């Protein structure tokens, strides 16, 4: 846990300005990249085995290589929507070191042969968008963005585009529709964005943290970068830890460290006297793990093996003071609110799940309802254009499976409280 690539002295005053960023060696990786061929830069990205930091964990180099070759206009879109509950790492990067993102984005556009780029930032991050706009102005004036960058053949336009508050715009095709000025409804895939994305052109979409890692890869070399972390999860990762921990915040970790070291070692664990009841390892869309699972290494493959996912790297910790039903209801209500309504299983499934959870809480549910609710989750997964429905069904399904006893006890307790028969039984006892 010694490597700090992204968070290296990130609180240095003025790091958001070009002068301070350059003084510590900023934009040297871009200069180095522009002296290489785009294929060589792509080769380094592939050698690094860098996996996307937004949620899906797809190899970035491979994604770039899927773009068609030739003179066709290509787009690069940076996904800065960061709307997955529990995730706030990109916010800290953009606010404190915006030039790192711009440098990584320009290098990636060179490797991909893209000439137009956009940073789609969620509308709520207006302070960060202002900082990015200012950094972009500086970078443009210094010749790092624009026509014939640093005297090379490569040109790139860059626009910071502000969203307006919709979770689904973090889904890449929903984001593209939103960037085209429409409702952020996800598209049917295939065609994938690499072939038909923004304005029907080939489009590469990468997360803020992914692009911000690119300068380090060019500087160190892909092979050297791949030595950090594990074989299938190379490098460092920013982890946002929140919920019931004593020191919530962003931490840069080497992939593969035990989860306990993050939750207890770095974030301090739950308050005195409390235990970890469950935790979301990768944002609220990830199936939950329990206090028994704290020794699982924090990397893509170990999380997948444990039946969950690393996702965006957002750990939400819930301690034993909170009923599991509250967690499930909060989670389900969020997805109900954010479902775009295009696919029936998601639109109806999120709504029914909320209603059934509320029935349990009102004491109107029967044990059969728990089974019906579990089956509703199964009917959502894999049946929609995007994974928003799955993103509710997976954590809710995991909660029902892992905390069935508690759900049943909650249901029974509420039923006894609310029914006249229960009151009679209580009186008789």
């Amino acid at each position: 846990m010694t490597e700090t690539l992204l968070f290296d002295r990130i609180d240095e005053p003025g790091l958001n300005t070009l002068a301070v960023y350059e003084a510590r060696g900023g934009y040297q990786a871009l200069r180095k990249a522009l002296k290489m061929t785009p294929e060589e830069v792509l080769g380094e990205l592939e050698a690094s085995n860098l996996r996307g930091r937004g949620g899906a964990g797809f190899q970035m180099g491979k994604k770039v290589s899927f773009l068609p070759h030739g003179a066709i206009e290509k787009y690069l879109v940076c996904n800065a929507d960061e709307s997955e509950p529990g995730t706030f790492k990109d916010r800290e990067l953009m606010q404190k070191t915006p030039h790192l993102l711009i440098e990584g984005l320009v290098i990636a556009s060179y490797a991909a042969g893209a000439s137009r780029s956009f940073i789609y930032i969620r509308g709520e991050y207006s302070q960060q968008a202002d900082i990015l706009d200012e950094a972009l102005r500086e970078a443009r004036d210094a010749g790092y963005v624009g026509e014939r960058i640093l005297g090379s053949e490569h040109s790139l336009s860059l626009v910071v585009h502000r969203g307006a508050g919709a979770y689904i715009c973090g889904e890449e095709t929903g984001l593209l529709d939103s960037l085209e000025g429409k409702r952020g409804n996800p598209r049917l895939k295939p065609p994938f964005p690499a072939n038909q994305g923004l304005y029907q052109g080939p489009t590469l979409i990468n997360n803020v943290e992914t692009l911000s890692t690119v300068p380090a890869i060019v500087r160190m070399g892909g092979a050297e970068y791949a030595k950090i972390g594990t074989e299938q999860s190379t490098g460092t990762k920013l982890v946002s830890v929140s919920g019931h921990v004593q020191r919530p915040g962003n931490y840069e970790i080497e992939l593969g460290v035990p989860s306990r070291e993050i939750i207890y070692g770095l974030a301090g664990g739950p308050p005195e006297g409390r235990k970890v009841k469950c935790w979301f390892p990768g944002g609220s869309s990830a199936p939950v793990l329990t206090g028994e699972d704290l020794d699982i290494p924090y990397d893509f493959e170990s999380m997948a093996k444990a039946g969950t996912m690393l996702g965006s790297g957002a750990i939400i910790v819930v301690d034993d003071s909170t009923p599991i039903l509250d967690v499930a209801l909060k989670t389900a209500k969020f997805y109900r609110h954010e479902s775009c309504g295009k696919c029936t299983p998601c639109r109806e499934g999120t709504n029914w799940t909320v209603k059934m959870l509320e029935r349990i809480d009102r004491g109107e549910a029967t044990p059969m309802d728990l089974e019906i609710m579990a089956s509703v989750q199964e009917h959502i997964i894999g049946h929609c254009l995007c994974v928003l429905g799955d993103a509710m069904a997976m954590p809710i399904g995991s909660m029902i499976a892992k905390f069935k006893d508690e759900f049943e006890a909650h249901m029974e307790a509420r039923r006894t409280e609310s029914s006249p028969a229960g009151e009679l039984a209580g009186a008789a006892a």
Partner: protein
Amino acid sequence: MNAVGSRGWDVPADLEKNPATIPGVGGSPSVPVPEDLRKEIEAHMALYPDTRSAALPALAAAQRLHGWCSPEAIDQVACVMGVTPASLDAVATFYDMLYTEPVSPQAHSVYVCTNISCSLRGADELYAAISEQAGDDEALDVRPFECLGACDIAPMASVDGVYVGPLTVDDVPKLLDDIRAGREVLPDKQLVRRPCADPKAGA
């Protein structure tokens, strides 16, 4: 008048209404657009290969002027962008930060995050306290919001885009006083002044 922003299915369609066409095109009357707003929208349109990409920033600009995406605001954006008001209405109803119910142009927006990480740390009590103490003050537009991406300062709120937290119920009177007086809100609780939690990140 039908509620423009109605999201439910309980408001019937107005069958008497003429289908709206692009203002100023094909014989339909143009609408007056304030010059500053027109310039701002045109500047956004110039940034994209397809001018329709400017819909979100254009609607946001009109909302800053009108307080919400009123029929008048929508018509003005439609007139400058050369699209139908209906297409913009469809966009505005999709996004939480575009309002389709009346809000005063002078109102300060107060978003209180009530999502999972904040609610584990008392966001529901915080939201209740803020909305109760704000009462029906038109200068305060208080809304519960989904995850605002600041769970490190949970529970938190965004005041006109400025993130503050962690907040307690005791902070609420000072928070609202600061907003009403036009002062910087809770300066020592602002996110932008907060150092990184990671001890290795020290300057």
